[in-house]
Each structure stands twice: as C-alpha cells, then as structure tokens.
C-alpha cells in the first residue's frame, strides 16, 4: 500500500492483494458446484411434477371404461395378462404406511394438491439458484479483475469518512482506520491525564498550564487530518529511545507529545509559542527547530541512569497513588 503525500490521504491497492485471483477462482468453483447440485435437485423436482401431471391425466381417463386389459406385472421380471377392474377405486399412499381408497375425482384433487407443494419447492429452489448465480458471477468478475491487475484507489474525505469504492474492502479498511484513530485518541487522552496528575503533585502550575495548552493545541490538530501511522510511530519510538530513563515520566510524555507536535508541520509554530523553555532537556535524538521544554522546574540535563533513579524515587510515590496507565506500562 502506497500513501500519497498530498493533501488528502489516499491508498492504492491492487485488487489482487485483496482478493487473490486464485482464491476468487476457488470460491467461484465452489459456488458453481453448489449450483450444479441445486440444478440436479431442480431437475428431479421437475421430473416429479411431470410424473404427477401424467398421473392426473391417467386417473382422469381410467373410469371411462369398465375394464381395461393390461399386463399385470409379477415382480420385476414377469407379467400376467389381466384386466383392471373397479376402475373408479384408487388406493393412494398418504405416507407412513397409510393408504386411502378414493374415487377418481378425489384422487385427482389429492394429486393436484401434491403438485402445488412441488411447485412451491421448485420456486424456492429457483430463488436460491438465482442468488448462487449472482455470487458466482461476482466471483468471476473479481477473479478477472484481479488477473487484469485492476487497482483500487481510496481517498478520505475531510471528515475522516472513508470513500466507497468496494463495499467489502471499505468495511474492513474503515474499521481498521477507525480503530487506529480511536486508539490514538485514547492514548493522547491518557497522556494528558497522567501529566496533569503528576504535575499537580510535583511541579509548577505554570508548566501545567503550558502543557495543557500544548495538549489542547495538539488535540485540536488531531481532530483534523492526522497521519495515523506516523503518529503511532512517534508514540512507539519514544518509549524505545528513552527506555533507560524511567524517571523522566512527564518529560517523556512531553517529549513524545512534542515529537508528535513537531511532525505536524502546521502545529509546529503554534506549539513553540506556549511552550516557553524553562528547562532544557537535551536528548540525543535530533529535534528540528527549537529546544523542547518540559514540565520540570528543576534542571534535568541528560538522561543519565543515576538521575533517572533519583527522580524515579520521587515519582513512585506519585505513581503508586494513582492507577498506572497503559502507556506507562508499555514503556516499562
């Protein structure tokens, strides 16, 4: 999947990656097999209906004569010459070893009712066949598309609602993007909560306000188009980089937030304004533009392990008082 680095987010997917040609073929074959089975059943039903109609005609004609000269079968391989008698009396099987003696007219009624039942069955079977055929044709079309190398292109609206190109793909993709978006939002919310809580315990209010401002601006920009993958990278990268300095909890949060912020080109200038650097944290990674400030009032220069441990002791008291967030647990 390639991403357009343009205004709109866009994805270009070859259809063959979504519906590989082979699988589409297999699926269409399976559907065709089911179609063949149903076709057989259909033919059988038609045979029954024909038989029924013939029988109705026969039963109609028999009472015309008193006797009919026939060959009476004797088992499967022998006949007797004989005659049909009592030509108006018929013994009809109702099922489960129950027979009824009926006259010709009554028998015809019975047979007509049976015919109606058969017709209903036939109709339902035909409907099923139609659906199956539609499925099969869809699979065929997808298979041929995949083979031809057709490509599905999706672009997002400004409101983050994914476009409708292929309904199936749309659902899964929309679900994935919504999930990511929701996750990002939830993480950002957690970060905010952590910072606010910790800062209330240990640091200046000013910094808290500044950070709140930073958070808010970031929040507002996450409401707009967010490059979800890049932001995720930021969140994931920061823990790995600063793994050694557990003590710099708030600093880390701030740093990660800053990184996010700084990668959103529109946000960069705005963020620099509210975040006046009281303290400097020099990180080994490259920070484009100004120094990032953090919430500490004290001056913590480098994430040396010793300092990390000291501040960790300070922090543990604060931490134990509140539930540990998922984000922090991940970093640990």
């Amino acid at each position, binding site marked *: 999947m390639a991403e357009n680095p343009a205004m709109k987010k866009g994805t270009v997917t070859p259809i063959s990656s979504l519906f590989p040609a082979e699988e589409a073929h297999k699926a269409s074959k399976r559907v065709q097999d089911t179609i063949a089975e149903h076709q057989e059943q259909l033919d059988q039903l038609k045979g029954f209906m024909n*038989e*029924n109609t*013939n*029988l109705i005609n*026969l*039963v109609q004609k*028999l009472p015309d004569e008193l006797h009919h000269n*026939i*060959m*009476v*079968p*004797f*088992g*499967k*391989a*022998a*006949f*007797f*010459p*004989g*005659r*049909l*008698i*009592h*030509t108006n*009396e*018929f*013994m*009809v*099987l109702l099922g489960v070893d129950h*027979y009824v003696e009926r006259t010709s007219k009554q*028998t015809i009624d019975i*047979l007509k009712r*049976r015919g109606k039942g058969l017709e209903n069955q036939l109709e339902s079977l035909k409907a099923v066949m139609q659906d199956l055929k539609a499925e099969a044709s869809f699979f065929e079309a997808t298979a041929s598309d995949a083979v031809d190398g057709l490509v599905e292109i999706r672009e997002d609206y400004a409101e983050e609602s994914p476009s409708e190109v292929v309904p199936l793909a749309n659902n899964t993709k929309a679900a994935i993007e919504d999930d990511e978006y929701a996750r990002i939002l939830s993480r950002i919310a957690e970060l905010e909560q952590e910072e606010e809580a910790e800062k209330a315990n240990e640091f200046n209010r000013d910094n808290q306000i500044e950070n709140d401002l930073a958070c808010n601006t970031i929040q507002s920009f996450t409401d707009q188009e967010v490059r979800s993958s890049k932001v995720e990278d930021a969140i994931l990268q920061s823990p790995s980089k600063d793994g050694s300095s557990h003590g710099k909890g708030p600093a880390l949060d701030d740093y990660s937030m800053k990184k996010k912020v700084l990668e959103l080109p529109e946000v960069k200038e705005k963020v620099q304004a509210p975040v006046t650097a009281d303290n400097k944290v020099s990180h080994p990674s490259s920070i484009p533009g100004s120094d990032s400030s953090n919430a500490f009032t004290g001056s913590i220069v480098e994430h040396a392990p010793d300092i990390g441990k000291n501040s960790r002791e300070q922090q543990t008291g604060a931490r134990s008082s509140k539930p540990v967030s998922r984000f922090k647990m991940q970093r640990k």
Partner: protein
Amino acid sequence: MNSELQEKVGRFEEFIDQRLKPDLVHAIAERDKVFEQQKIFSDLRRNIENLEKNCVTSLRTMVNLGSEVYMQADVPDTRHIFVDVGLGFHVEFTWPEALNFISEREEKLARQIEEYTQLIASIKAQIKMVHEGIRELLELPVQ
C-alpha cells in the same frame, strides 16, 4: 534422494486413488446389479412355486399406476406367464417352463457374480501391493 522418494510415493498414492479405487468402486457396483437380478429371479421362482403348490389359477392384485396410486387388477388365468428374457423380449411360459428358464438364468447370474468377485479381489490385491511398495520405500530410510 529424499525428494525423489517423496515423488515416487506420491505417484504411487496417486495411482491408487485415481485408478485402482475407482475401478474397485465400479466393479462393486456392477456386482451389486447382478446380485439384484439374482434376487429378482429367485423371488419369481418362489412365487411361481407357490402358485403351483396352491393351484392358484386366478389372482387379484394391486397395480401401481405411478406415484404409489394403486388400482385393483384381476388375473383370470395365471397359467401363462410372460418372463423377461433380456433384450426387451418377454416369452410366454407355462409354469414348469418358467421354472426351468429361471433356474438356468440363475446359474448364469451366479457365474457372472463369480467373475465380478474375482475381479474385485484382484483389484484389492493390487491396491495392497502398491501399499506395501509405499511402505517399503518409506521404511528403508527409517531403518
């Protein structure tokens, strides 16, 4: 070497599944048909013997008109039976003639069954042989 082995084994198995097993199925189906015929004729013979024993000359029976709708039929004279002799012909027999014919027919059917049974046995033997061959091929490397 191993891949060659696998290939051979695969081919043998394929042979079994595609040639021998369907052959077996066919042969069994044919034999079942002959069994059926045999049963039909033995039933007929028993019926005729019954008729003879009880000196039944006329008969009241129910005839299936199709779809299990029956109608009464009367056979005034049962002494003449038309028996199916194959190829779509029915020959008019008296009772002793009919019984004669039926016994000869039964012999013929029994011989056919015998043939089919032998065929089935040989196919089964072939399948077993190929199995053994596969097993040999696979066991040697193990040993």
